[in-house]
């Protein structure tokens, strides 16, 4: 068992609606879908955004596309018209999700990149 950054296994895009953050996560390779479902849980994503005040995370799975959508409540410090952060939209936060370390087994597809 070893860990790799999620960036090796998936890509992501962030969007905002008010103070609600939407982060998609899409497997580069469908072979890793089960691993992503196991590792990238609502609890872990909530912990990742906790320092910014996130209050809840809802995960939506779309297995036919190898994709999932995270809706993170209250993570944008009031949203684009209120936040003092340089990135008030939260646009960069997709790569915060991709910086998460995930445990991989000896799956060669997971470590090939």
């Amino acid at each position, binding site marked *: 068992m070893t860990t790799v950054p999620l*960036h090796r296994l998936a*890509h992501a*895009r962030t*969007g*905002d*609606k*008010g*103070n*609600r953050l*939407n982060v*998609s996560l*899409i497997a*580069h390779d469908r072979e890793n879908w089960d691993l992503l479902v196991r590792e990238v849980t609502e609890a872990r994503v909530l912990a990742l955004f906790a*320092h*910014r*005040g996130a*209050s809840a995370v*809802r995960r*939506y799975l*779309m297995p*036919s*596309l*190898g*994709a999932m*959508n995270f*809706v993170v*409540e*209250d993570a944008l*410090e*009031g*949203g*684009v*018209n*209120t936040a*003092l*952060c*340089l*990135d008030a*939209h939260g646009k*960069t*936060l997709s790569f*915060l999700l991709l910086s998460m370390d995930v445990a991989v087994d000896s799956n060669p597809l997971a470590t090939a*990149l």
Partner: protein
Amino acid sequence: MSGQPFLIGSGAGFSGDRVDAAIPVIAAIAAEGRGGAIIFETLGERTLALGQVARQADPSKGYEPLLEQFLAPILAPALKAGITIVGNFGAANPQAAAKAVAKLAQAHGLAPRIAVVTGDDMLGDPAFEESELWEGDAGLPTPVAAPLAVNVYLGARSIAEAIHAGAQVVVTGRVADPALALGPLVAHFGWDWDDLDRIAAGTLIGHLLECGSQVSGGYFADPGVKDVPDMARIGFPIAEVMADGAAVLMKPPATGGRIDIATVTEQLLYEIHDPAAYLTPDVTLDVTGVRLEQLAPNRVRVTGARGRPAPPRLKATVSYPGEWLGEAGISYAGPNALARAELAVCTIRERLAIRGLKPRLRADILGAVSVFDDDSASLRQGGAASGSGDYRAHFAFGGDEATVRAACQEVGALYCCGPAGGGGVRIQVTPRIVTRSRMIAREKVHAHFAILEEALA
């Protein structure tokens, strides 16, 4: 009304998008000789708020500032080729935007039928009093000031009706982004509004097109992981739509970018929250059964959208006067740079206390951790940075104008009074508008269109 396939492209995906992107899109659609449509989506929550500020300062403004630049190169060729132009570039002032389009057309010796869709502006409407806060904003305080603007998200019906009435250009304010595409599709195919899978298909196509290049290689490149060819010339998307709602996404020939399963999947999920229930004024869209097939390089077939009835309430963006925002930065480089930048931050905090200034304050040190951090710099304080390099202390102050200006002036004073070797101070102070979303019963919302003919006389 026709059963023939319909070509619809995107000319802009946000306010501030590339002003020449529509040119190859129009050329590619025109080359097919069947007419079509092009959509310009230039209105975010923030850009609508900025439009309200602009309209307050000048009643003839408040529409998309780049409108003339977007349309000047394509207006004549689009009209000649029978390509309907639909845009929410009316922003906070659709009437003024329509007049600007008419003026631009006149300069080309043209007099197109221009329709203005209104009904989104519900400021002062009694229905606002009965609206409910959108649940996503439940954690935020409701501003105490009276609203400056209330704009409800309209659906596609007025757009379709305007095109039926012969409009060649349709100018809207706040409409649901996908409605910009759904309107022309309904006008072309004559889909019944109760044929929910067709309305869903058109909404999905609109969702995929409305961010422009975000489906064709824009906002996607990650070198070595997801490479995108010729990003300086990304081709904006065009959908060829069939009468049953199936579509093929493509882009103009000899342009950069890429359209494949990965780019389309990223845009498919963009900002939709629950994939089984993307709420729009026209339909509740379910994308969980969507199929994407790569037919050829840069050609992806999209099928499988499902629709359920539209929600009973429509979302409205309410704009209130907000704080002033002051931003100021100063750079430190070389040995011990991070420590000097941290000292600058400590010094500013103490100076604000000495002068009795109490703005909301955030201080980032760029070069360490900034945009992932929170307002109290918990990641940086946790030791996520090393000790030398090239750092910029960046301050953001929120509050009343005088406080914010005074706080920014203190950052400027770091030149002589701050840590050694500080340089490159930049200061910017701007007013803000804060927004909240509320839900309004749809029967209280009255969208309509009018043809702008009088203005030309």
